């Protein structure tokens, strides 16, 4: 079964507004990561938050992690048209370095100019 599930599936906002996407997962994690994918391209890593961290910032991005609720959120502040993309969360299980990420289904964000 899918480990990560993003919510909402699609989000449309105006430039300058904030965008919030959520990710829920089912089992214990080592870390949770967020990726961006522009249409027809590969994924680009945005931010990684470890299981013992609660919040992390990178530029206009803010990620929170609540391990008790098995959920994470990605906030993009002051959005721009260039932020239009699909956003995926990915979870890394605890254990050795040979374990692999499990990606969610993604949230399609459209930022209208």
């Amino acid at each position, binding site marked *: 079964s*899918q480990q990560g599930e993003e919510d909402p599936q699609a989000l449309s906002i105006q430039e300058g507004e904030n965008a919030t996407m959520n990710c829920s997962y089912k089992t214990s994690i*080592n*870390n949770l*990561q967020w990726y961006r994918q522009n249409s*027809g*391209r*590969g*994924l*680009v*890593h945005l931010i*990684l938050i470890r299981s013992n961290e609660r919040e992390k910032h990178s530029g206009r991005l803010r990620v929170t992690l609540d391990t008790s609720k098995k959920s994470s959120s990605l906030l993009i502040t002051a959005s721009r048209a260039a932020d239009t993309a*699909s956003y*995926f969360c*990915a979870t*890394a*299980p605890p254990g*050795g*370095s*040979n*374990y*692999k*990420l499990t*990606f*969610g*289904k*993604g949230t*399609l964000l459209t930022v209208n100019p």
Partner: protein
Amino acid sequence: EADIYQTPRYLVIGTGKKITLECSQTMGHDKMYWYQQDPGMELHLIHYSYGVNSTEKGDLSSESTVSRIRTEHFPLTLESARPSHTSQYLCASSVAGYNEQFFGPGTRLTVL
């Protein structure tokens, strides 16, 4: 920019053809992955490798095969392409399984 490359970027071929999708990375990563992704949909892991001469099938059954003879090279082969193989194929690499993955630009395959 990640140092991971995929060729070709686009490929249109007829049914029954044998094809190889190339993936190379210059970061010295041991872990490499192949994902299949339909437009606007989730990623499905089809193959991964922990190092040279190590390959495993992923979560999604695939008729493709892979090889890992050199650290930097992880090609994917379809012996006989079918229309059901039409999709985007993404290659990625990482230092360790729980670290961030670096993705190539993808190969969009269309089988007629």
